[in-house]
């Protein structure tokens, strides 16, 4: 196992978005955090690169990402008023893609802010 140390990492758990976190990892999980709060530590330690979930599910059955992507495209394309919702736990780069997709499918795009 290769041990790595990441300095000045950014925690995305809450709106504080602290960017002074030190993360130690063994390549599979984050083993140790410095400067993170109790919520941040739990968030970082709660993730691993182990494959705990299927790549994708279609109607509850395991599928490949490719199949799921194409089926998702079909469903969104067929819809008259598709909704894109969320955005708070994805990156800005992903949101930029989402805005572009919303445009293409003539949908509504909305975030937690509207709640």
């Amino acid at each position, binding site marked *: 196992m290769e041990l*790595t140390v*990441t300095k000045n*990492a*950014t*925690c*995305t*758990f*809450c*709106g*504080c*978005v602290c*960017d002074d976190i030190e*993360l130690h990892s063994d390549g599979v999980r984050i083993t140790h955090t410095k400067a993170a*709060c109790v*919520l941040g530590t739990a968030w970082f330690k709660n*993730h691993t*690169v182990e494959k*705990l*979930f299927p*790549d994708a*599910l*279609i109607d*509850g059955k395991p599928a490949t*990402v490719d199949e799921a992507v194409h089926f*998702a*495209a079909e*469903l*969104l394309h067929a*819809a008259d*008023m*598709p*909704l*894109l*919702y*969320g*955005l*708070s*736990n*994805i*990156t*800005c*780069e*992903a*949101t*930029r*893609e*989402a*805005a*572009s*997709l*919303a445009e293409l499918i*003539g*949908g*509504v795009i*909305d*975030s*937690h*802010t*509207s*709640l």
Partner: protein
Amino acid sequence: MGGKVSCTLGEVKNRADLIIYWGGNPAECHPRHFTKYTIMQKGKYVPNGRKDRTMVLVDIRETPSAKAADIFLQVRPTKDFEVITLLRAMIKDQPVDEAAVAETGLSLEQLRDLVARMKACKFGVFFFGMGLSMTRGKHMNSAALLTLAAEMNAFTKFVAMPMRGHGNVTGGDVILRYTTGYPFGISLSRGYPRFNPGEFSTIDLLIRGDCDAALILGADPGATMPQPAIEHLKRIPTIVLDPKVTHTSRLARVHITTAATGISAGGTVYRMDEIPLPLRPPLKGPYPTDEEVIRRIREAVAKKADWMPGMNGVVAAA
């Protein structure tokens, strides 16, 4: 009236001598807010840190954050707007009705003391949480507090900032503002952006049953939204992108597992004061990023016939 008078968090760290949390519980929800940005920090102009600052907590119940506060003001539930309105009158030396004060659960003395502190401070700040913005009155409460902060600038330096919850909820607002001109609740059904909260906000769309497909990005409405909204998500084809199989995944037609933001997915996120920060993901995971999956969906849709009239022909020849 309207707008927002605010600052970045470093201004609070360096200058604020009066810090008022309203309807928020940073001790439990934003644990490092006190130590990294506000009361505990030694700042450039508040060199003694905690000793140079006064913290006030306004809330309907005594949360663990009250322990950190110098003054705790317990407002009667649903009376925040009234308290703010009274304060707006009192800073301008307008008479207030004692009966109206009594209804708020606070005494005139408490309010007078708060007004005196607000006027005497060199740099005051309101941080307001969901206890203000998501309870009766909702955005009206936020607007009233923002106005109070703006009006306080006739006397001293004063700012206000929402305590945004989820990690990159601010980034979502920022990106939507510059791509569409609006922060949330945007319809592109006419090929250009339109904004109408109430019409294009998620809960309203779902409860009315207006939308006929949903793509859920890093959220779990199946666990958090009102039942009628969840029922509609079950009725329509729902697609979920999430690092975990969520409640919403279970009612969805499609779930795609994606890399966790900041853990195995890189990019940018915004802090509650709209400062962009880079991610340094320490792990390489087995799943694609949200960015990549959304791009692939977009590319797959782009190959199909366009829904907009006139878009399927050849672009006019050069």
